[in-house]
């Protein structure tokens, strides 16, 4: 008998077979980690204030560039080997959107109050980030059913808590967390890509490349 739910889940999982999403996410984390590291080295100087004022620009530019790269490599590597697939863009229901905003607001407010009232809490920056990303990765792993995302969730928690326990707090700890977790994402993505390429050699003349192919 055909297991419908298994097929639906497998279809969603197929998007992550090539590891390119993790490589892209890893690059974003590495860029943010590098940015924090740069900020750390320029604290107090004019360059430092310029660096800290362009955080949002750096973040969105990194996101935009990496997203373009991901699409480019999907066209070059994935679609010719295992075919083109475009997933539906899920529209969040208004109820869910409000619930997400409320939860995010409560977490942000609680953290802001905590960091203001007790400056020593800044030593926990990497631990807080590590645990937040661990929860996010865990929920994502549960939704898509890709085993290596569970490992990444554990890695995030271990790196974050480990750095805080080792005395790397504040901006230094934060930059180390983003660099290490970014490297973990990049390495697992690369390993998945190597396995994918070995399992799926490019078929001769079978390249379709998707509708955006040039």
């Amino acid at each position: 008998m055909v297991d419908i739910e298994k097929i639906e889940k497998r279809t969603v999982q197929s998007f992550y077979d090539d590891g390119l999403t993790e490589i892209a996410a890893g690059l974003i984390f590495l860029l943010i980690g590098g940015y924090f590291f740069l900020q750390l080295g320029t604290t107090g100087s004019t360059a430092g204030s310029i660096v800290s004022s362009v955080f949002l620009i750096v973040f969105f530019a990194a996101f935009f560039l990496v997203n373009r790269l991901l699409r480019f490599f999907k066209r070059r590597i994935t679609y010719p080997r295992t075919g083109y697939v475009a997933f539906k863009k899920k529209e969040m229901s208004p109820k869910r959107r409000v619930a997400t905003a409320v939860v995010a607001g409560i977490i942000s407010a609680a953290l802001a109050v905590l960091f203001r009232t007790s400056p020593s809490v800044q030593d926990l920056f990497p631990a807080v980030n590590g645990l937040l990303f661990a929860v996010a990765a865990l929920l994502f792993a549960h939704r898509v059913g890709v085993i290596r995302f569970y490992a990444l969730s554990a890695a995030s928690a271990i790196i974050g808590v480990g750095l805080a326990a080792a005395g790397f707090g504040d901006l230094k700890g934060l930059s180390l967390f983003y660099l290490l977790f970014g490297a973990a994402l990049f390495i697992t993505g690369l390993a998945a890509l190597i396995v994918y390429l070995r399992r799926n050699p490019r078929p001769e003349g079978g390249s379709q490349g998707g509708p955006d192919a040039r």
Partner: protein
Amino acid sequence: MPADMHGLAELDRLIHEPARLALTAILSVVDSADFLYLQRETGLTKGNLSSHLAKLEEAGYVAIEKTYRGRIPLTLVRLTDKGAAAYKAYRARFKRFLEKP
């Protein structure tokens, strides 16, 4: 016919065929997919896949767009609204049947 068999008898036979069920299940979670992707995911031969897609297209369940990118043929398949509604109804009915004690 026993009452609990009625639900099964009412299943959409076009979708109920295993290969077409796999195809509609895949297409239900994607916006569109090309021929190569569907072939790899279902394990069907080119001929079989074409034949099943033609039946689904004939019923208005899928839309097939044949185009070219350079010299390379590109066949894009997507589930139509009619196909999505039929699959949703099939899925719900089949699930109800399986859950009956």
